[in-house]
């Protein structure tokens, strides 16, 4: 079969979006400085480091962890992470015998305040379609082969609840500071496609 490239060319999209923005600015519908601020927020201020701090805190502070598992939205707000696409948070905890995996089969729901905007693969048809029917195959593609006696819990974000996986604290990290621990935590581990 020939190689089909059905994607609209990026240069076309650049021109179309430029034209659209200039139209909306000229009509007074958007403030270009607000657009800059939105882009800056998600490019530089909000990202998986936020989630990493939540996880590290839960590892070092049992009382915080308890609050996090009981009312994630409030516990995450204690660290200052709130707002759009994190209004209603639930944290699910990995254990040696339980592994959690988060997906949104219907669109691209993702906990922005703690993880930032989702990667392309998370929003893609292959991940969305397969995570619920073949989580073990998906995890294997990510290099994670789990034994059958580990229970996999897939969380499909079909409503306005947003999920964050609390990974297990890695062995050998007993002497690390909270800050060092936070740096260990990866986005993928908080989605559930990796373990630490």
């Amino acid at each position, binding site marked *: 079969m020939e190689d089909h490239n059905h*994607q609209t060319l*990026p240069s076309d*999209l*650049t021109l*179309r*979006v*430029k034209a*659209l*923005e*200039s*139209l909306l600015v*000229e*009509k*007074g*519908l*958007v*403030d270009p*400085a*607000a*657009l800059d*601020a*939105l*882009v800056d*927020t*998600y490019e530089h201020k*909000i990202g998986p480091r936020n989630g990493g701090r939540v996880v590290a805190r839960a590892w070092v502070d049992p009382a915080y962890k308890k609050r996090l598992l009981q009312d994630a939205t409030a516990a995450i707000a204690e660290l200052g992470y709130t*707002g*759009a*696409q994190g*209004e*209603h948070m*639930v944290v699910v905890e990995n254990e040696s015998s339980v592994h959690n995996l988060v*997906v949104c*089969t*219907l669109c691209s729901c993702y906990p922005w*305040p703690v993880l930032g*905007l989702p*990667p392309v*693969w998370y929003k*893609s*048809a*292959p*991940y969305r*379609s*397969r995570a*619920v*029917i073949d989580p073990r195959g*998906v995890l294997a*593609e*990510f290099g994670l082969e789990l034994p*059958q006696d580990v*229970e*996999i*819990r*897939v969380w*499909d974000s*079909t*409503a*306005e*609840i947003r999920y964050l996986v609390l990974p297990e604290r890695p062995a050998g990290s007993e002497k690390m500071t909270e800050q060092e621990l936070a740096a260990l935590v990866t986005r993928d581990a908080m989605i559930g496609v990796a373990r630490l």
Partner: protein
Amino acid sequence: MNGVHDMGGMHGLGRIEYEKNEPVFHAPWEARTYALTRAMAAWRKWNIDAARHQRELLPAEDYLRMSYYESWLERLVQIMVKSGLVTRAEIETGKPAPGAPKATPPLTADMVPGTVRRGAAASRDVAAAARFKVDQKVRALNFHPSGHTRLPRYVRGKTGTIVRNHGVFVFPDTNAHFLGEKPQHLYSVRFAARELWGAQAAPRDAVYVDLFEDYLEPI
């Protein structure tokens, strides 16, 4: 609607393509499309459910073919035109219609941090008795609305267990069509993987789906 967006359980959609050190946006137009979509939402001419539904209305082959932000761009154009904020002719010419009054943006740069930090709760402080309780067995309804729904096809008619009551939330099926918020209890429902997919699934695995009260019946 039973659209191609409702893809949980489908085969044949390709391999997962992982990108190391992926940037937040892959091109400036993606960033602008994202920001334009959020800034235009501040006009409150539509809600999040209507916006989701608008993306579902893309022709199925376009939905599958387009990159993510390309589909956002198409969605934004459609919903702006539908809501009357811009006209098709303005999109095509790139110029405001002659004599169109100039508006004032509802979202300015100084408001962005607060807007981002506050978000918009989908829960509603409405007194409503919960029809189901934790540990109760329920069945997801077998219905097939042609409009928006957040009940995925792969759980319809299947039996699960209530594991959590999230509280009272806006009902997307009506809200997406501007037919009211119809606030109701939202539950986390655990479905055994074997209930969903048969014997091929691992015996202990499960899928947890957030389902509204109107999607469920007692067993």
